[in-house]
């Protein structure tokens, strides 16, 4: 079979990563990886400077020639040893930045938001008639926020003007016209507005926006209040990114030759593709957490539907994220040593401003990972809000609702962690963690998995590359992902106490569940999950064990309160028994909290004893 070499490049927010693969049939081998800072904003060369720096390093590591003397990519026509395929994904500066505008933020706004985030776009803001802002303040926010595109949605396809929706969406178009926004790549250009709203309103929208913007028509994201269709808007955003933004934005100048095999793709979209392939292979709902330097993306596949949300602290994406001061305050709860909130805030603020910097001390690393726990928590909350039943549906109440036994008004989240059997952590913080226990700690404390969950890590940050590959050769990408490119960290057992009716106070160390582990050599290991404690049962990395968990009354591990559940799993950390309940509640006393956190971190591993000893000898419970 023919050998082929593939170069995949991902321009992240802070770091550009280039990877060289060799494929033989449906087998893929990684030859090398190199990184360089992402050079977004560089006036003459844009992103290509960072790409070339990464490729030069990759050449030195792999002894494979990738660039010619003019720093252009070598192709197989130039020399037989040259790479056969080149592909680029980009998340620098949020690849494509979109302003979303809708009529009602929970209805058309929410659907448009899903469409934009699903394309891998960064959402600058969400404007809606009911967002509480004055019209000219909306216009000012739109004008002062540098964006590439505006996505406007609102109104149903039929009977629009019989209600009030028609007037509202036209009113929003008028606000956009008042703002007269310009694209961030060239203020002399006209902005592109993608209208994914009512088909009936198109003539009015064209009349309002014709003078100030290029209007692109897309399928309505909410053709009916009960139907959501984001695919048309997603296609339109991707096409606008490739046809309008990339050729005109100086950042992408010189990048086209490196994306000769597949067109330039937003990283978020590439990862969504990889996530979809993996969920299909595992036949289960899955959750992916991309823990970046300044952004945290959550991807989920719920009932075969891929969802993506992004949150950050630099104002790039819309999200309820507190400022650094609050982040420092909250992150302090996850530190095993005493540090003032002011000191933590100084370190976190610098990490935000210089995201390419590497934590050089244990204290800096601990603070970065503690903040990642909080960022994961907020991101999951934002994800839960967005991945929810549609709002605005007119429905008749049934007898249960009339009697108050069952309430369903839309907006309930579809993300149920007890149904999610796989969690995958990826991103720069995963790549830079120096021990698998650190990644497991971030996932356990940040996402707080429930029941029995297999936790995995993409330590090489390969998902963007494999996602881009899926667009060219989906069979190769699917085969590769199934081959075990992900590191199995461990199987987490986390019984969840009943929400209502349980005891007000649980005794520290009281039994929550009994665990029976059948190893491959036939031996049995028995252990208990105890309240407030984290335990780890180490196993060889490649061993898959069969775990049966029998919860006590009032606890659930996925099969219902008190019912046993069996699954198979394992990983480098073995089986982790998390008895902290959900949500995790830390002691209020700072000394006791630090001591407790140190105990948890010691159980999972990954931090030196000298650091954990700083917690002092406070009471363990």
């Amino acid at each position, binding site marked *: 079979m023919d050998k082929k070499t593939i170069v995949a490049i991902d321009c992240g*927010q802070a770091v550009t990563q280039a990877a060289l693969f060799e494929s033989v049939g449906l087998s893929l081998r990684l030859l090398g990886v190199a990184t*360089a*800072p992402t*050079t*977004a*904003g*560089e*006036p*003459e060369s844009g992103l290509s*400077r*960072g790409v*070339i*720096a990464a490729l030069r*390093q990759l050449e030195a590591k792999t002894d494979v020639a990738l660039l010619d003397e003019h720093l252009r990519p070598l192709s197989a026509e130039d020399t037989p040893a040259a790479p056969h395929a080149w592909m680029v994904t980009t998340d620098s*500066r949020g690849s494509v930045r979109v302003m979303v505008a809708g009529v009602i933020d929970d209805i058309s706004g929410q659907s448009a938001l899903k469409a934009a985030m699903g394309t891998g776009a960064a959402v600058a803001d969400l404007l809606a008639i009911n967002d509480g802002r*004055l*019209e*000219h303040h909306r*216009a*000012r926010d739109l*004008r*002062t926020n*540098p964006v590439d595109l505006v996505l406007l949605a609102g109104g149903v396809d039929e009977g629009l003007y019989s209600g009030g929706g028609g007037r509202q969406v036209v009113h929003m178009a008028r606000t956009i016209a*008042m*703002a*007269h926004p*310009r694209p*961030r790549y060239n*203020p*002399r250009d006209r902005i592109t507005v993608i209208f994914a709203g009512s088909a009936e309103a198109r003539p009015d929208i064209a009349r309002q926006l014709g003078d100030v913007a290029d209007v692109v028509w897309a399928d309505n994201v909410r053709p009916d209040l009960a139907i959501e269709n984001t695919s048309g808007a997603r296609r339109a955003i991707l096409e606008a990114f490739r046809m309008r933004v990339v050729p005109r934005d100086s950042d992408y100048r010189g990048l086209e030759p490196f994306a000769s095999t597949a067109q330039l793709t937003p990283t978020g979209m590439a990862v969504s593709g990889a996530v979809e392939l993996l969920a299909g292979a595992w036949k289960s709902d899955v959750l992916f957490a991309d823990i970046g330097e300044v952004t945290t993306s959550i991807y989920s596949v719920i009932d075969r539907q891929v969802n993506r949300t992004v949150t950050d602290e*630099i*104002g*790039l994406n819309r999200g309820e994220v507190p*400022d*650094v*001061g609050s982040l*420092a305050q909250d992150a302090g709860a996850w530190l095993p040593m005493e540090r003032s*909130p*002011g*000191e933590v*805030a*100084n*370190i*976190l*603020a*610098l990490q935000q*401003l*210089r995201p*390419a*910097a*590497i*934590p*050089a*001390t*244990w204290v*800096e*690393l601990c603070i970065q990972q503690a903040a990642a726990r909080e960022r994961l928590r907020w991101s999951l909350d934002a994800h839960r809000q967005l991945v929810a039943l549609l709002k605005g549906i007119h429905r008749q109440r049934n007898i249960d609702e009339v009697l108050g036994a069952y309430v369903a008004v839309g907006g309930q989240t579809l993300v149920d962690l007890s149904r999610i059997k796989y969690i995958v952590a990826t991103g720069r913080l995963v790549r*830079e963690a*120096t*021990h698998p226990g650190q990644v497991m700690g971030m996932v356990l404390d940040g996402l707080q998995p429930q029941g029995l969950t297999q936790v995995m890590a993409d330590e090489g940050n390969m998902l963007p590359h494999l996602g881009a590959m899926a667009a060219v050769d989906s069979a190769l990408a699917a085969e590769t992902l199934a081959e075990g490119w992900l590191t199995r960290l461990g199987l987490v057992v986390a019984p969840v106490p009943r929400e209502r009716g349980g005891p007000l106070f649980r005794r520290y160390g009281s039994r929550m569940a009994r665990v029976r582990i059948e190893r491959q050599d036939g031996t049995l290991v028995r252990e208990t999950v105890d309240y407030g404690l984290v335990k780890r049962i180490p196993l060889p990395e490649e061993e898959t064990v069969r775990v049966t968990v029998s919860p006590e009354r009032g606890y659930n591990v996925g099969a219902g309160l008190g019912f046993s559940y069996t699954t198979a799993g394992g990983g480098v950390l073995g089986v982790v028994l998390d008895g902290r309940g959900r949500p995790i509640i830390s002691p209020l006393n700072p000394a006791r909290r630090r001591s407790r956190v140190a105990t948890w971190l010691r159980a999972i591993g990954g931090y030196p004893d000298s650091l954990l000893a700083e917690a002092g000898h406070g009471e363990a419970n």
Partner: protein
Amino acid sequence: MAPICRRLVTAPNVTMRRERRLPLSGEILVRTGEAVNPETVVGYNSAEECLHILRLDVDESRVLAKLLRNVGDTVKRGEPVAYYMYFFGLGYREYVSPVNGTISSFDRSSGTMVIREHARPVTAGMYGVVEEVIEGHSVIVSARGALVEGTAGWGELAHGQLLVLADSPEQDLDAQRIGPHCRGKIVVAGALADSRALLAAYRHGARAVVAGGINKAEGDEFERFVADMSYEEYAARFYSSGHEIDVDNHGGLDRVTMTVLATDGFGRTPMRAEAFALLRAGEGREAYVDGGTGGPEGRLPEVAVTGPHPAQAGTPAAPAANEVCAAARCRMPCGLWGGLAEGMRVRVVSGPSRGRAGWIAAWGSDIVLETGHVTTGARLRLADGTEVDVPVANIEIVETGPAAG
């Protein structure tokens, strides 16, 4: 190939191009090639759409409130425009203007009062020449002068004379040294300006404070404190040193602000020697400070001396438009990133050597950090002759050369 690192400009003579953008569409008042000074208004936004609505109590199409201002009157933010007294004077409601503006209409049947916000002026903020005009949108002002790029900032554009209140880059700003002589000045500190010093500078009317480091929490708290401080509140709090602001000439801008800039980091961080020397050399000269804006697209925090030197009063310091070279068509004179080379002046942004500056002695070998992370490192020779190994990712190049112009 040498690894690339971010550049931090600290140069005595560079050409700068800065955008001044209208917050809403409006009118640009200057033309290409025109010389501007910091007070020059380059444009106004259109006030046509900036409407604020007050709903007064009505009863059967009769307004219950008594009007204190009429249509066409100018009102200030917080000023009562009507009041309603009810229940024999025991109940009282006051309607105050949310903005500085003009009452444009009042509907007696519905009790709706519309206040049009004053048009907001955008000033040049620096000495220079207008290089480019995008009608209804923005202007590009180019100037030549000394530029010190900062790490973080709080607040808007501010200008004033430089006043150095530290003897060395390592010295903190002592609140005791701040007095009425700081009014209208840009106060330069050494390693740290804490919250006491910031408040002292603010109460004495300083336009800006520049220090090597500012505590993040204190900077944020100060920004929140200043954000809604109107002239009236400022005068009430700091009556002994309150300074006059001509509200009418500044449209809606009646807030008393002070910009804060950290040149080298958060917490106590000595200012890099080049920056301190440059600012000290410019003491007494007109400069501007920009706190920058957050986000990857935002303006970078910086302090620049673009004003005429006292000895050359009347001589425009701005370059002619044709002097602006192509390399300067960016936010920084020679790009954001530079290749590392031996002998290059750099500073460390993170880790045990945070805030220290030195020269590259060697680079390229792998180093193992205390966390176990293996990364490409560089060996720095510090000013005291010692050498330290730091990750290349944690280095910033201190760009001191006259890169353009």
